[in-house]
């Protein structure tokens, strides 16, 4: 260095010409794809200034298998088991969204008992998805193992129910056009009732232990704030939207299936930060328990599938239909165009977690790199659905 040092103070201070990492120089870090907190093979190119995120570009496509093209090459029913693999945590709601769209496309009615079974299974799916999401999120925050195992204990009970009904724990392939595949007997229903009745106890415990934990509050409150205007414009749906205070639940708005018959509330957040998104899941589970109690009490007897629907040579009339449901992660929609043939001309999945990632950069800017994982965890993504 050629500059002459005149005082001791000047010697201690670094010269102005020297740039450090903290002086605006950006360090590019590639987070993922093989990272336990990215919930699958997902990568983010992050530009860091010190520890602060200045830029973030998500990179998709590691799990891309062109699901939509495979759907166009198969018969309508042939795609049903493949929808399980979209969001592999919630195969029941994926089935329902697809069945609903095809029913709209072909104008099929669904019998009463099948509608009840669908509601019961969708709400059980919501319970296990939200429970395991909370576990994963805490795992991302550094609460290794224990909270996740608490959540998985409950999830396991529900998966056992799914297995005894459909034969599979996760890849259920349960819904059919105009109904469901197998009927639930009384023993199954009483087992479900038992699990539902015990579920609030888990919620009380979980909320007392975790959601009021000081560290959790410090890590999540005021982190990743989302304004309602941006959320609406960016097409955010599900618990993430309602955490911003926007009252939009497709179960209430569209009233698909038989949801208008049930009494339940839509929890809304205030701040739109990560803590609200976390609490939103806990509160929604309580409402799901309410719906389940009503549905299990009211379920009628009767057929579970519409006998008029052809299983073989199923050809919907020419036309198009868009059907959507409130999946645990947000609005899951299927858009189908039929040309009168045995397979759809166009088969499109509207994946909620993919579209919820639109504003990932906006949420993370200005936060430290450790918060990126917490924000990503609170969005609740599953790569099977994001990359399709």
């Amino acid at each position, binding site marked *: 260095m050629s500059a002459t040092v005149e005082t001791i103070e000047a010697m201690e201070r670094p010269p102005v010409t020297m740039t450090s990492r903290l002086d605006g120089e950006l360090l590019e870090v590639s987070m993922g794809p093989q990272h336990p907190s990215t919930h699958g093979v997902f990568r983010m190119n992050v530009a860091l200034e010190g520890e602060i995120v200045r830029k973030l570009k998500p990179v998709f496509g590691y799990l891309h298998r*062109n699901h*939509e093209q495979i759907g166009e090459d198969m018969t309508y029913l042939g795609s049903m088991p493949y929808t399980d693999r979209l969001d592999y945590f919630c195969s029941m709601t994926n089935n329902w969204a697809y069945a609903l769209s095809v029913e709209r496309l072909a104008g099929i009615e669904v019998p009463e008992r099948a509608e009840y079974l669908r509601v019961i299974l969708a709400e059980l799916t919501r319970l296990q998805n939200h429970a395991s999401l909370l576990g994963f999120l805490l795992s991302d925050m550094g609460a290794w193992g224990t909270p996740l195992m608490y959540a998985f204990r409950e999830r396991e009970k529900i998966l056992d129910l799914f297995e005894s009904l459909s034969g599979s724990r996760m890849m259920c392939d349960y819904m059919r056009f105009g109904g469901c595949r197998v009927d639930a007997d009384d023993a199954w229903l009483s087992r479900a009732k038992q699990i539902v009745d015990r579920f609030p106890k888990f919620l009380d415990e979980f909320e007392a232990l975790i959601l009021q934990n000081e560290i959790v509050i410090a890590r999540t409150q005021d982190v990743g704030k989302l304004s309602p205007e941006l959320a*609406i414009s960016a097409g955010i749906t599900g618990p993430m939207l309602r955490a911003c205070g926007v009252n939009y639940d497709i179960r209430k708005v569209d009233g698909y299936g038989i949801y208008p018959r049930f009494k339940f509330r839509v929890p809304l957040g205030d701040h739109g930060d990560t803590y609200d998104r976390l609490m939103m899941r806990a509160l929604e589970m309580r409402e799901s328990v309410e719906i389940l109690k009503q549905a299990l009490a009211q379920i009628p007897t009767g057929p579970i599938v519409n006998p008029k629907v052809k299983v073989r040579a199923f050809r919907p009339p020419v036309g198009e239909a*868009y059907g959507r449901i409130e999946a645990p992660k947000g609005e899951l929609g299927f858009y189908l165009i039929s040309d009168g043939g045995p397979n759809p001309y166009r088969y499109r999945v509207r994946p909620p977690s993919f579209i919820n990632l639109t*504003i990932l950069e906006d949420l993370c800017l200005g936060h430290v790199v450790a918060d990126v994982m917490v924000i990503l965890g609170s969005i609740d993504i599953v790569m099977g659905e994001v*990359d399709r």
Partner: protein
Amino acid sequence: MRGAKIEIMVNPGPARQSSLLIDHDQAVAVATFLRDHPALGFDFCSNVTGVDWLDRTLKKTTKVKQVVDGVEKEVDQTSEEKIPGYLEAIYHLYSMKLKYGPLIIRMRTANRTDGVHLPSLTPVWRSAELQEREIFDLYGIHFDGHPDLRRILMWDEFKDHPMRKDYVPPDDFEWEPTAHDEVLERAKQHYPPRPQLDGAEKITAPQS
């Protein structure tokens, strides 16, 4: 806004979700109007997707009265109408404020080869950002005015658009761990012969 061309496309199916066909030039103005008009209020663009329509011929049979051998008869006359192919972008709009929908709007490109430009609606609805990128990737529609139009699901070096109806998947799956017999045979035709790999035994075998 004045003079915007809008056509109603009727959906013949039981879903009865008909759509509006919008002209390119006024698309952003129409979209902004749909979003900002207080009585319409379509603030939520739920689903954006592309469709590929190949060249088609529509056959129509019409009954025409003709004089055959001095007797008037009704004769079926078939007329063929050729529809050139195009790509389509479809937007499903809902209103979160007024809680209704969907309104479906669609835009069509001029053809499937060089006129594949459409105006981007990402400035109007942010939710179209990743979905329009996906359409660009899988269908090859160029959205003018999109802030960051790159491939999203396929890798950047990829050449074709795999969701097009006339897409032919590559047959050189040689790099696949499960490549076998006929796949390998087909793959060989893509490359100049490589004796060190393909005919190794023949070269190294001792000449008796």
